[in-house]
């Protein structure tokens, strides 16, 4: 099949590129409606408190302002994807600084902002829990008293007998790793407008929404409307990375409440500061790993204990940490595994879905650990992974036998080794690692004024290092959710076609990818496909656009729809051309060929139209069944997997502690590539985000309050911060996905920090256990931050 494609696998210009380079693309805040009002949130300045009363008397002089709060909610007062613990407007408690008690609605947004100070609250402050390790203490205050515990979720996984495994191991080591709280930092802040539909038709919502069908469900629940009376339309989305889900649902519900109450369109748009304070983030993890192995390098046992800070609300924690428990051992076949993953409530900003989704954290830990094992038994990082890495037929930690696809872990690893001459360079760098640096860390916590012999020689300042990391990643949702997707394709009589899928464009290029798939099947050019505006009223709920599942799930549904229509054309042509078999029919170059004759696709469609042929179809793809035993953590967690290996080359400045990434080589097997240009873009973007995770990013809090609330403090990589990135694809075959097209978005990000950390070890001779590897971490092996709310990043 490979090599025979018309367009699949080539570089195709995005369908939305023209609108975006001309400034015509309409993002959520670009919509305006006649009579539109604005909604502005009112927050308190505490992190944990009981609400005794809210006093609006300060607003009496402003009759033009409408207040929306808990009393305006007819349906669910609390919402959530898994656990309904997040109030749309707080009424019992404040549990984190982002919490909103009410919304002021009026025509003058800047006036509303000034008036927020007029809303007075009577609060009773409660003890704070900001350390997740104390959340489960017997005397800890319950963040959500009705839950009677601060435990959000606990996943155990048991395979074999770890104690026996440790007993059989010559070496047993234990390590602890931590990762920080991370802001998605999509460039577009949240914005949404709710517009009442005439004649009690319900409400129409247009916003920067990642998952329109989820938003619809939450808004309908809050309004107590049937699903059909809430129509959610997605505006052009200015980046999400997992971040425009829960919060967007709640903001949309607030706007909808106000629109129904005032009978006017109501827009809510966040400033960057509001976005940072209220939006959820990537989970900080505390990870304890114990591993037993022998001189032959074979890992006998691994015991893992992971604690995730879920913050104030459960959000996606139960799903995020489930992926963690499945993948915590990495892509290694290990006989005895004992894993516990817990997520807990605290008063910190809440955490949920972010690109990677529970994998970047354990990969950092487990890939650091693999390098340590290699060093102890004296083999290279490449060798240790070859010894333990999964192969076709291997059994994962959850007892899943890997088959029905190319298990390409060792292939990506070998390719990366070859491409970078890894092993040789790794040896070279470790030989020249600066032993003086390792012993000269005397100023760690001791004197601030140096001694004469503590200066560095200029020749010893810059050190090079190389490191690698590998992963296997389960595609799509796995046993964590219902996994099915729809696509609607409607071919017109001139040969052009409408297409839409229930999965949504998040900026990643889904519309183009899906158009290519449909066009490939029909042998037409993707320009002839018009991708419809994402609207919950015209396409079936296909689950969320998360988990790198759009290409594999939505792509399969699109292919299914196109094949249904193609089959109808074929059958028509059998009669029309009076031929016996459709094997000779070839759909290519906007024509259909049969031996010596052919017909243009537009003529074909016109003919079909005149014959009353149904040229529209709904395609469907339901993921193969997967299962999970909650008690033992065993099962075929995902129906297929993808593999990746990244190599990082860094320069470490031993004087300042700065790390520069000179080059990343990313080798991925995402299955079949649909749009090469889009695929490369995913690699460059994912690697860059991963490098930010490794080196700079990290939201810090003081009593639950965020210190870094805008881009002067949230340091995401700029154009000057990352060296070369090289992307290499090994397209493994698979029985699932359109021609075997699987997942790429998240694998690109999840490996980078781990590879960089290993490269830094190679350069400095020192191992670091806590991300980000910022200058303080490099020089002092710890983080420094002020003892108050002052902004930490500048000093």
């Amino acid at each position, binding site marked *: 099949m490979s090599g025979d494609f018309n367009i699949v696998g080539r570089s195709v210009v995005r369908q939305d590129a023209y609108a975006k380079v001309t400034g015509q693309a309409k993002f959520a805040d670009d919509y305006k409606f006649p009579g539109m009002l604005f909604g502005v949130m009112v927050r308190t300045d505490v992190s944990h408190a009981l609400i005794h009363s809210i006093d609006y008397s300060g607003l009496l002089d402003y009759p033009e302002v409408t207040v929306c709060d808990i009393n305006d909610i007819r349906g669910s007062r609390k919402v959530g994807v898994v656990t309904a613990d997040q109030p749309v407007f707080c009424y019992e408690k404040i549990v984190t600084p982002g919490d909103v008690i009410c919304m002021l609605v009026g025509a003058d947004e800047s006036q509303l*902002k000034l008036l927020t100070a007029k809303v007075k609250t009577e609060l009773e402050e409660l003890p704070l829990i900001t350390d997740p390790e104390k959340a489960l203490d017997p005397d800890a205050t319950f963040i959500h008293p009705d839950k009677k515990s601060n435990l959000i979720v606990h996943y155990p996984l048991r395979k074999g007998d770890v104690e026996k495994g440790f007993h059989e191991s010559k070496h047993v080591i234990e390590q602890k790793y931590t990762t920080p709280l991370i802001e998605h930092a999509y460039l577009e802040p949240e914005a949404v407008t709710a517009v009442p539909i005439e004649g009690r038709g319900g409400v129409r919502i247009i916003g920067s929404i990642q998952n329109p069908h989820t938003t619809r469900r939450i808004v309908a629940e809050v309004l107590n409307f049937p699903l059909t009376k809430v129509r959610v339309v997605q505006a052009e989305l200015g980046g999400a990375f997992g971040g425009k889900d829960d919060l967007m649902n709640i903001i949309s519900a607030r706007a909808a409440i106000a629109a129904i109450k005032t009978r006017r369109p109501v827009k809510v748009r966040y400033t960057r500061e509001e976005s940072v304070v209220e939006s959820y983030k990537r989970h900080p993890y505390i990870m304890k790993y114990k591993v037993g192995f022998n001189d032959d390098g074979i890992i006998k046992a691994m015991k893992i204990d992971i604690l995730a800070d879920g913050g104030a609300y459960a959000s996606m924690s139960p799903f995020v940490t489930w992926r963690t428990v499945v993948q915590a051992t990495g892509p290694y076949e290990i006989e005895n595994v004992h894993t516990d993953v817990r997520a807990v409530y605290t008063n910190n900003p809440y955490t949920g879905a972010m690109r990677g989704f529970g994998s970047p954290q354990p990969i950092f830990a487990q890939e650091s650990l693999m390098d340590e094992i290699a060093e102890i038994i004296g083999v290279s990082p490449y060798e240790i992974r070859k010894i333990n890495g999964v192969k076709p037929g291997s059994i994962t930690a959850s007892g899943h036998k890997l088959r029905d696809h190319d298990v390409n872990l060792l292939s990506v690893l070998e390719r990366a080794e070859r491409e970078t001459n890894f092993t040789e360079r790794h040896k070279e760098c470790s030989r020249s690692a600066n032993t003086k640096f390792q012993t000269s860390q005397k100023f760690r916590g001791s004197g601030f004024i*140096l001694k004469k012999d503590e200066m*560095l020689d200029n020749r010893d300042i810059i050190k090079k290092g190389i490191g690698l990391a590998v992963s296997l990643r389960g595609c799509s949702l796995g046993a964590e959710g219902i996994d099915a997707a729809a696509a609607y394709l409607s071919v017109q009589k001139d040969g052009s076609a409408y297409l839409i899928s229930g999965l949504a464009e998040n900026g990643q290029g889904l519309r183009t990818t899906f158009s290519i798939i449909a066009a490939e099947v029909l042998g037409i050019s993707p320009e002839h496909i018009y991708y419809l505006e994402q609207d919950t009223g015209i396409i079936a709920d296909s689950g969320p656009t998360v988990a790198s599942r759009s290409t594999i799930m939505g792509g399969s549904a699109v292919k299914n729809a196109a094949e249904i229509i193609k089959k109808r054309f074929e059958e028509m042509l059998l009669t029309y051309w009076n031929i016996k078999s459709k094997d000779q029919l070839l759909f290519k170059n906007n024509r259909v060929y049969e031996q010596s004759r052919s017909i243009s696709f537009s003529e074909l469609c016109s003919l079909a139209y005149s014959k009353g042929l149904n040229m529209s179809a709904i395609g469907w793809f339901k993921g193969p069944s997967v299962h999970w035993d909650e008690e033992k953590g065993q099962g075929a967690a995902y129906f297929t997997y993808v593999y990746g290996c990244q190599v990082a080359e860094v320069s470490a400045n031993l*004087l300042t502690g700065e790390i520069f990434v000179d080059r990343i080589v990313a080798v991925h097997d995402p299955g079949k590539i649909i749009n090469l240009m889009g695929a490369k873009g995913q690699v460059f973007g994912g690697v860059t985000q991963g490098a930010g995770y490794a080196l700079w990013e990290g939201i810090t809090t003081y009593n639950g309050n965020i210190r870094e609330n805008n881009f002067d403090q949230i*340091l995401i990589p700029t154009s000057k911060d990352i060296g070369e990135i090289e992307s290499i694809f090994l397209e493994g075959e698979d029985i699932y996905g359109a021609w075997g097209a699987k997942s790429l978005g998240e694998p690109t990000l999840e490996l980078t920090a781990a590879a960089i950390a290993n490269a830094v070890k190679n350069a400095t001779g020192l191992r670091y256990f806590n991300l980000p590897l910022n200058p303080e971490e490099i020089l002092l092996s710890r983080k420094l931050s002020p003892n108050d709310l002052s902004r930490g*990043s*500048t*000093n």
Partner: protein
Amino acid sequence: MKRDIELFSTWKLDEALELLEDGNSHVIAGGTDIIPGIHINSNRFRDFNKLVDISRIKELKRISEEKDKIIIGAATTFSEIESDEILQRHLPLLVKAVSKIGSRQIRNRATIGGNFINNAPCADSVPPLLVYNAGIKINSIHHERMINLEDFLISPYRTSLTNEEIVTEIVIHKPRESLNDVFYKLGRRRGVAISRITLAILFEIKNNKFTDFKIASGAVTPIGKRFYEIENYADGKKIDRDLLIDISIRCGKAVLESTGLRWSSEYKLPVLQRLIYSLLEDNCLRR
């Protein structure tokens, strides 16, 4: 902007000074601090509701060479400074420093006067201006005064400027062309970073001895600071490794003394000392 603020624009200095006479107005030039400051309702920009825009007053944007002096209009932008040939020749340290400030968009608007009048600890133009012994000219409708920049800067975000005054010029005696210069900025990122340590050093070497050694730092002290004692100590001394180490450690001590211990000291102080040594070794020892 959220609150009602009147903006008066003028092309003439006299008019601007007249507008400021009532003492209730705030000067705006590049606006890169004031505009977002007002937008986020920062308490530094709350007590006025009249802005006088001086960004297009020609005489405040002039760069000229007058005998032994260089004069820079206070409303000159960083981009204008970066590309000016007179400054590239005579004040290379200043050019190097301002070219590392913010982004291109910021440098196209932000002015040198605004940078030091704001007097943030991390104002990057301050250390080079201090080692150049910059003076500034200040005008109001009633008077004109000259003051050394060093005396003008009082404490973080405070200067001796009154509400009626405008800083009009920066005046610098042309340094000898034989002076060597070193500028270093440490940020948390390569692109668009706020300074964590800045260093501006000028020196000349005669007979393997320092003459005219000058050093100032930014971001490690509450405001940009010259280290005169260290300069006096260094001048006339034979340059060798020991001297450079000595200078570096003395700087560390001077910073510790003026700043005290801060949460960041554990990182910054050792790095500062090693940086100074490294820069001096690089620029003085191997010549």
